[in-house]
Every structure is written in structure tokens, then in C-alpha cells.
């Protein structure tokens, strides 16, 4: 029983990061039908930029804010220079562009930063808290709380502000949104900026626990995408549920089956979900136009 709880705690912590990455995927997919494989690089940029700004002498809270700003800038640049010029291309071309962007960002991080692993001091330090025989780090609770806060803020933004409504309108029907006067290009750019911010915050929160380096982005993007598919691509609730579920499944597989094949769990899930229930848990039925 204590083992089950322990795996559950670590699974939920990592799952929160997957959930945030999946949320970023969903936001961008909803606004412009693009699967953004560079999403994982946003997480990497958040953590690494904070680390290196901190090493340069900037106080950590300020470094974290600057890191988020830098990542937002990268997200906007990605939209403006890589996605916008290729509007109207097929889904595959856009996926390849974002994969190229993620490779580029990883290569740039390798040059600007370095290839070592880095850590950040936890927001809330101290020993692990013991609950029913299992231990959970205070930072894990911070990660989970951060994820919840981000979700609430995002929900409030989308439901209660006019800009949020504009994003929903653009996602529903771009032409109609433009006809009522919404600047769809800016709205899509905004979705990239918000995704980047969410990714960066996730990266900063998780760095004290799982360390960060220049190449964590790729695997995170793939797993975040698996989580989004599991929950149903296009559904924000699905993204979060999918992320947490994936984290739990991964932790249980690592603990009870084989830790070597831990990474395989996400990809097995992708295959099973796509073949058995392509809609995922909360997705809409796909409509094919003839």
C-alpha cells in the first residue's frame, strides 16, 4: 500500500507537467489546427533560462519571470516566422515545420547554454512530508498547486474576458471570426504566447525535482502529446486528465513492471488509444469532409 501511494505521488507530480504540456498542445491545436512539437522546448527554455540567469547573478524570482518572458518571445517568434508563412499547407507540412523548430531550439540551447544537467532550489524546501507511509516532496505539492492555479487562470481568461472569447471564436470558425472583426492572426499568436508561458512555468516548477538540461524537450513533447491524445485532442479537460493519467500509468509501470520500459508506456498508450478509441477520453467525433 505505501508503494502504491508512493508511485501515485511521483506519478501525479510528473503527470502535472505532462498535463501542462498537453494543455499547451490543445490551446494551439484549437486555435490553428497545428500540432506544435516545439511545446516541449518551451518547458526546457523555462527551466534552463532561469538556471542560467540565476548563475549570472540575477535573483531567482526575477530570473523566473524573465525566463517566462523569454519563452513567450520565442513562442511568438515561432508563430510569426515559422507557422504564419506556411498557413494553408497541409497538416503534415506544419508538423514537420514544428519538428524542425524543436530541433533548432534544442540546437540553440546546446550552444547558448550547455549540455549538463542543472537544478534549481525548490520554492518550498524542507524534508519530504510523510503521508500514510509514503513520502511527498513539498515541491511536488507546489507543482500540483501551480498546475491548478494555471488551469483556473486559463479558465477565467477564456470564459470571462473578451480576448478569451475571441480565441474561442477563432478556434470555432476562423473566417467567421475575421468577419466580426477579430484579428485572427493576433489571436493565434496569443495562443502561442500563452502556451509558451504555461510551458515555461511548468519547466521552472519541475526543475527542482527532475533537473533540467538542453534535451528534455523532445521526450516531454512526445509524452505531452500522448497525454493530449489520451484525453482527446481539442479538449482542455481531456489534456489535464490525460496528463495526470499518463503520469500515473508511467509511475505504476515503472514500479510494478519494468523501469527500463518506462518511456515506452507513453508510446504504447498512443498506439492503443489511436487504434482503439481515436477520440480519446473526452474528444469530439472527427468529421471528415469529402
Amino acid at each position, binding site marked *: 500500500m505505501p508503494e502504491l501511494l508512493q508511485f501515485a505521488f511521483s506519478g501525479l507530480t510528473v503527470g502535472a507537467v505532462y498535463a501542462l504540456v498537453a494543455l499547451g498542445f490543445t490551446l494551439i491545436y484549437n486555435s490553428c489546427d497545428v500540432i506544435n512539437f516545439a511545446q516541449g522546448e518551451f518547458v526546457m527554455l523555462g527551466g534552463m533560462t532561469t538556471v542560467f540567469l540565476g548563475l549570472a547573478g540575477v535573483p531567482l524570482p526575477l530570473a523566473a519571470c524573465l525566463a517566462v518572458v523569454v519563452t513567450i518571445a520565442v513562442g511568438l517568434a515561432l508563430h510569426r516566422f515559422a507557422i504564419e*508563412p*506556411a498557413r494553408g499547407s497541409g497538416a503534415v507540412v506544419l508538423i514537420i515545420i514544428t519538428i524542425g523548430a524543436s*530541433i*533548432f531550439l534544442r540546437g540553440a540551447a546546446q550552444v547558448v547554454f550547455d549540455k549538463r544537467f542543472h537544478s534549481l532550489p525548490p520554492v518550498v524546501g524542507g524534508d519530504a512530508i510523510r503521508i500514510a507511509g509514503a513520502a511527498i516532496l513539498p515541491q511536488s505539492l507546489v507543482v500540483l498547486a501551480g498546475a491548478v492555479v494555471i488551469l483556473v487562470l486559463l479558465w477565467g481568461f477564456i470564459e470571462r474576458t473578451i480576448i478569451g472569447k475571441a480565441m474561442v471564436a477563432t478556434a470555432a470558425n476562423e473566417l467567421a471570426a475575421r468577419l466580426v472583426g477579430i484579428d485572427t492572426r493576433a489571436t493565434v499568436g496569443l495562443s502561442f504566447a500563452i502556451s509558451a508561458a504555461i510551458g515555461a512555468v511548468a519547466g521552472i516548477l519541475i526543475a527542482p525535482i527532475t533537473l533540467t538540461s538542453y534535451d528534455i524537450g523532445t521526450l516531454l513533447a512526445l509524452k505531452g*502529446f500522448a497525454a493530449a491524445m489520451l484525453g482527446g485532442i481539442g479538449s482542455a479537460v481531456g489534456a489535464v486528465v490525460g496528463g495526470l493519467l499518463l503520469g500515473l500509468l508511467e509511475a505504476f509501470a515503472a514500479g510494478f513492471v519494468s523501469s527500463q520500459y518506462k518511456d515506452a508506456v507513453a508510446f504504447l498508450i498512443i*498506439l492503443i488509444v*489511436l487504434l482503439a478509441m*481515436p477520440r480519446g477520453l473526452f474528444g469530439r467525433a472527427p468529421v471528415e469532409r469529402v
Partner: protein
Amino acid sequence: MRALLNHRLFPALAMSAVVVLLPLVLPSAYYYRVAALVFVFALAAVGLNLLMGFAGQVSLGHAGFMGIGAYAVAIGPTHLGVPSWLAFVGGAGLSALVAFAVGRPILRLKGHYLAVATLGFGLLLAIAFSNEARFTGGPDGMAVPRLAVFGFSVRGAQVWYWITAASFLIGAVLALNLIESPSGRALRAIHDSEVAARVLGVDVARTKLAVFVVSAVYASVAGSYFALLNGHITPDVSGFLRSIELVAMVVLGGLGSVAGSLVGAALLVMLPQTLTSLHDYEHMALGLIIMSVMIFLRAGIVPTLARALRRA
């Protein structure tokens, strides 16, 4: 003249000319080896081009099949006592079987769902190769025994140049013939509109599966050559980055252009060789190239050039 240029095998003729004339300008064994590598990857790219360029399906996990071919040629002689050439053929057969088994359910998907399913498949293979250290030597890889045919051990960069060039040309001719055949037209019909193709009587599921299996065999053969050429393989041969490089080669050269596959392969194989001093910038350059070509030269290098020349 026009008839010659438009003949379906003209690209193969042009490429044969390049293959025959190239040794006149290659200074040393190192260049022969790079050229052999280009032909190996061009072979895999041609197979992937059949799938992506003509049938319009996407596969982001094709390096997995290269891995099957590569590890077959490594494990066969080492652990199973099978001669290299038999392991070569066995690897191709195994790839075909795996493609048949996996392709049937996966090819029902479309667009980015298909892309991600193939991605997951390729990654699963890479993880399996990396973890089963008893058979595959784990993340550090394993040595590949030299190919021995009729008692002669195949060695030397020049020998491999001619072997890989011949294999590539055979593969290219087969592909070019397939494209102009009724099966090839069925493929292109599927690419245009699956529903319309089905209405016309094309067995879409079977045709897609067939081209998937064929492209898997191409990749497996290329993977086996790669392993034999290098004498050593690691699980990276079937990794995510390798799959993306294959897709990049196809897309850069031109979706639907067999000659383009050679150009794309040449570009991406020679890129790290030319950047040896700037090795750290290799990923940046690769990502930048992929993005730029996809944004500005959407049709790929060879079709864009062909279109420009035709207009001139």
C-alpha cells in the same frame, strides 16, 4: 529529346550517369564512404517517398524498419550463427512482416493521427533495441560482422560505393516503374482523395498496406547496408532523430520525386560532414534547413528546379 526527358526512367538514367562519373572526381576513400552512405540513405528515402510522396501517408517512425534491418545483420551472425547475406534477407522479410502486422490497423488513421502512431511505433522499437542488451548490446550497440560473399570478405570504400550505388539504382528503377504502373496510379489516386479512389474501385486499405510494406523493405535493406558499412550499430539507427532525418530527406528533395530523394539524402548526409568544425551547430542548422525548405520551397528542391527549368 523531349521524349527522352519525359520518359519515366529518365531520372534513373541521369542518376546512373552521376554514379558512373562521380569516381572521376572523388579524391580519397573517405569520399567514397560518404557517397556510399548517401546511396544507403537515398534508398531508404525512396521507399519513404513511395509512402509519403505518392500514397500521401506520413510515417514518422520509419527509422524503426532501418533498425530492424540493421540489427538483423548484427544479431544473425553473432547470436544465431546465420551468414550475413541470409540475415540481410531475413531482416527484410521480418520488416515486411512487422509492417504488415502493424500497418493494417495503423493505416486506418489519417493526417497527424497517423503521423503520431508511426512515431510511437518507431520509438517503441528504438526503446526495445536499447533495452534488450543481451541481444542488442544495449545503448552502446554491438559490432556487425563483415559481409562475406562466396568466401570473399567485402571490404573497402570503393567496393561499398559500387554495391550501394547499384542497390540504390535498382531500387530507384523499381520505384519509377511502380509509379507509372496501374498500381502507382492507384497510389496517386489515394493521395488525391481516398473517397474518390474507393468510388473508382481502388482497394484503398490493401494498396496502402502494400506500399507500407514495400517502403518498410526499402528501409530494412538500407538499414542492413548501413550496419554492414559501418561495422557497428547503436539504437540511434532507429531513433526519433533518424526518422525525422529520413522525412526531411524526402521532403527537402521533393515529395514524389525519386531523384529528389537522392538530392535530399546527399544534402543531409553531407551536412554533418561539412560542419565538423561547427559540430555544435549541427542541430541548429538541421532545424533551420527543415523549416526554411518547408516554408519557402514547399514542393521540394528537385520539383521546384524542374518547374523553373520547364518555364525557362
